[in-house]
């Protein structure tokens, strides 16, 4: 039997400091919708494939709206105490420690539950009263203390529709409380600018990588579980900035991570050579 107590601060992997604005290039109206929903205190549901910029959008918005951000990467073993907080025993005393959700509620920040359906439903039950008009969090373990969310608080959850199994879908009642923002991979010209800026490569290189990415995204049902994301294209570009050739970089950052199947790998390498060489 293994038991581990999670320090809730482990989950908070990002607190932004003023000044270091995350780079985000809006594709559609997502920034407008996000801002409107935040202003009207509506929770936000981000949908989109892996690596298309969901997390980056949230980081960018937190910076833009000047609120703290607490990100929780959800997984199956996460408990409600990991989100809300728990008492810990320190030298004979019991001390309450806020979880990331509770901290966001108190501070008026954004609490971002990444891949929320990975968490079991009983552990995310606390978000229901926060997601509707009440905007309250009940701390059962603190004798039922009710916290009212401070102004600026926003609940943002993300999920990747094509990715989860049947059992792991978001409950309809939860979904209906939310404003959905659907993200997909950016159009080629936007993605090109993103790759140029993030990886520090020239326009022609970025254009080649983006064309490769677009072509791989055409390969639906060809044995690839996921396609080349903007993130992988940036990774390939970054390797080039470190002196690798474009083919080496794309083989390492795009073909390798996408598949273990030798045949599909060879096919991807052929694509890389055709588009980039």
């Amino acid at each position, binding site marked *: *039997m293994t*038991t581990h*107590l999670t320090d809730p601060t482990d989950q908070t992997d990002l607190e932004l400091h003023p000044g270091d604005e995350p780079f985000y290039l809006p594709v559609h109206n997502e920034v407008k919708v996000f801002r409107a929903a935040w202003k009207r205190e509506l929770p936000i549901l981000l949908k989109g494939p892996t690596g298309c910029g969901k997390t980056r959008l949230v980081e960018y918005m937190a910076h833009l709206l000047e609120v703290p951000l607490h990100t929780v990467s959800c997984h199956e073993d996460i*408990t409600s*105490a990991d989100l809300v907080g*728990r*008492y*810990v*025993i320190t030298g004979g005393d*019991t001390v309450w420690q806020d979880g990331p959700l509770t901290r966001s509620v108190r501070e008026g920040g954004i609490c971002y539950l990444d891949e929320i359906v990975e968490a079991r439903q009983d552990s995310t039950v606390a978000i229901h009263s926060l997601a509707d008009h009440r905007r309250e969090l009940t701390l059962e*373990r603190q*004798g039922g203390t009710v916290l009212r969310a401070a102004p600026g608080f926003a609940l943002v959850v993300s999920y990747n529709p*094509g990715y989860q*199994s*049947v*059992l792991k879908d978001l409950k309809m009642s939860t979904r209906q409380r939310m404003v959905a923002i659907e993200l997909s991979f950016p159009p*080629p010209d936007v993605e090109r600018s993103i790759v140029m800026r993030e990886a520090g490569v020239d326009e022609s290189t970025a254009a*080649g990588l983006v*064309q490769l990415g*677009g*072509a*791989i995204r*055409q*390969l639906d*049902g*060809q*044995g690839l579980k996921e396609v080349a994301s903007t993130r992988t294209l940036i990774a390939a570009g970054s390797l080039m900035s470190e002196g690798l050739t474009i083919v080496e970089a794309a083989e390492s950052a795009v073909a390798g991570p996408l598949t273990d199947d030798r*045949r*599909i790998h*060879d*096919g*991807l*390498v*052929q*694509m890389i*050579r*055709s*588009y980039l*060489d």
Partner: protein
Amino acid sequence: MARSLPDGLAAAGSSERRDPLDHWSLLASAVAGRAVDVVLTDRPRAYADGEAIHLPRRGFDDGIEEEDVMTTVVVQAMLLGAGSLEPAVVGHLTARRSLARRYLTLEAERAIRVRASFVPRRVAAVVSSHWSGSGSTSASESLDRARSREDVPDAPAAFGAVRPRALRQSGDQARGGAPSKLDEQGRTELVITPEMDDEEESESANFMKALSSPLNLFGENPLMKWMKQNLGVGSRPSPEGGGVDGEMPAGGASWGDDAGPDAAPVLAVASHLATAAPAVPPGRFTYPEWDAIEGCYRPDHCHVRELEPAHATEVVRPVPDAALQREIARLGLDYERHRRQLEGPDLDLEAVVDFTVSRARRHQADDRLYQVRLKTARDLAVLVLLDASGSTGDHRGARTIFDQERQVVANLVDVLERFGDRVGAFAFSSRGRGMVRFQRIKELDGRFDDTCLSRLAGVKPNGYTRLGAAIRHSTHVLAAGGGAANRLLLVVVSDGLPYDDGYEGAYADADTRRAIDEAVAEGVGCLCVSVGAAKGEDALAELWGSASQVRVDDPTDLGDAIGPLMRAALDVAAHRGGGACSA
């Protein structure tokens, strides 16, 4: 930039033989926007049918540059993706080669615009350097222009050719096709029609066509061309169908049209290699078959192809079945941890910490401190395999057997999915060992949604039943896609006995039984459900074993019948397959 190919014939002759074209199929699929294979052909020019791009074997023998292969693959793939090769349009090009080549030039220019984002820059440059006249806006416009007197050059050999007949044939197969009379009779002889060919068509037919089409006489003047070719005026002889124009490709000696008299020995070597190194691109699989007469396996004997069935406008709705739900609820369970229980064999540490905290704070403490493992977790992956052979098209009252089988599949998949099991559904049929078709209704991943239901409605009974290969492929799908599930089950919904070209009677039965044994050894439980009063019921029970086969009169009777069978099949697989878990 151009290199010679890494795996040519030399690689094919080594101990690890691989098809030299496999690695082109992803590029082709990306450019076309749908799954396309790349395979070898003995024809002198590259061409595409609806499913694959065929590249001339001879080019590889001559050590063709990778750059030229890429140009051909991409041009043919973008023609597929841009709708340039729709049978309705290219049908007009049948046996009119010059027209087809002018059409190819026009369509390559159009396709490159339509698929611009997916065409490698180098190929785009090659295509635009060939011809940069004004572009067409549709395939039919290109057809009209190719027929007109407009000055359009022939496409170079590097672009390949258009073969209307190949496109039409594969189009029929890809769409599933309506069951023919032969299909419906189930056990009739397979009739293989020899492929008529555009380029092999007799010159007299060409001539007659030319005479009967005055428009074309004025356009490209095929009569003159015919006379030129056959009376030896102008161009040199070429091997295609006994001497049509054999121009050299624009880019030098790449895909030679002029194979010349030395073509035959090369082909002989190459066809030997083709059998030794079977092409297995993604979506295609080869399996051995058990030869009971010789007492050995025939390696790489059957070729299985996964396809996407056509979507129908209607859907097959699952009918709720309480008995089926009850049976399946009890099936395939595994242990999972339940925390915060009043009693149990282990302490729940988190509960103990909370308890200690509450006591220290003099709050009321929750004394559910234990954890226990209970058999409540779903641990089952099921593949439902629908027999879509032509014989299932027989009517039983108002509905066909196939309709009823389809209903069984819908009900079964629906219930399994509700319980959160991994469940996939495929329909299969065959036309000889080279063509065992698996139509993907639902993959093991993903939802059983309206798309799947309309795919299920879109499957048409057609062809025969090569059951052994179907079971072997299902076992592979389950083993590869069963995920974390330890209990794997294959449910075949079928009305009859295995039967196919060169696959009948004792031979077919023995191979099927062998395939079932292999599946069980892999830990996959197998059972067969048939609907309606089948004729050869005893034979069916004998084939599957009475404990693994059941017949129901109506899809709604499934619940009570299938539960014990599924449990038994899982038990057998668990014991024989060496797995520790049972149903």
